[in-house]
């Protein structure tokens, strides 16, 4: 699936953020930098934020540190109330991924994920090349 330039929004999944922090020279980091430059709007459900807090707290990071981490990127954290009614319409079977797809339906945009559960997702190379044009 290709990124549509008519709608410059995308929804990202938890692992995109982890991959960016792990490899700041990688493709995921580059996409997030494009959001900081105002070239793309990135959205994520509030459930992704909750997951990141839990996961990084397991890594012994404080709440303050995690908040600092999350402020690296321009991400529009979206409340459950926006996407909840689309949860029953998602195709993905894996429960943790349902809010991501539901938000993509709510916003009428595509998903950037490293997760194998999503059959339809953005090709990151094509996304980056379209943003570099």
């Amino acid at each position, binding site marked *: 699936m290709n990124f549509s330039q008519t709608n410059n929004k995308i929804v990202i999944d938890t692992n995109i953020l982890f991959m960016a922090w792990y490899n700041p020279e990688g493709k995921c980091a580059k996409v997030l930098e494009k959001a900081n430059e*105002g070239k793309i709007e990135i959205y994520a459900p509030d459930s992704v934020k909750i*997951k990141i807090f839990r996961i990084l707290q397991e890594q012994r990071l404080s709440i303050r540190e995690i908040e600092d981490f999350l402020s690296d990127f321009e991400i529009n954290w979206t409340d459950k109330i926006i996407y909840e009614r689309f949860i029953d319409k998602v195709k993905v079977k894996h*429960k943790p991924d349902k809010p991501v797809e539901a938000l993509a339906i709510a916003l009428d945009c595509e998903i950037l994920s490293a997760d194998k559960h999503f059959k339809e997702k953005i090709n990151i190379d094509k996304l980056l090349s379209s943003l570099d044009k």
Partner: protein
Amino acid sequence: MVKTISIPEDLHKELIRLKLDYGDKNVADMIRKLIVFYKQQRFLEHSKKFREAIKKQGISFEEFLKRAEKIREGVADELFPDK
């Protein structure tokens, strides 16, 4: 909406000089660029801290992602128990 902030005169001069050096249309555009640069620097610091935290746990990034997946499943059950 446009807002004003008070800054010392020497900083004002420095901002105007930088605006001219960078060829920006206005100071706001230049400040936006500085914020992007600042965020990039902080991101690199956080990236280092993130890798160190994983290393301290004595696990690989792949193992970290596996553990993260279990937490994701737990959070999903809490948020959407009946889905």
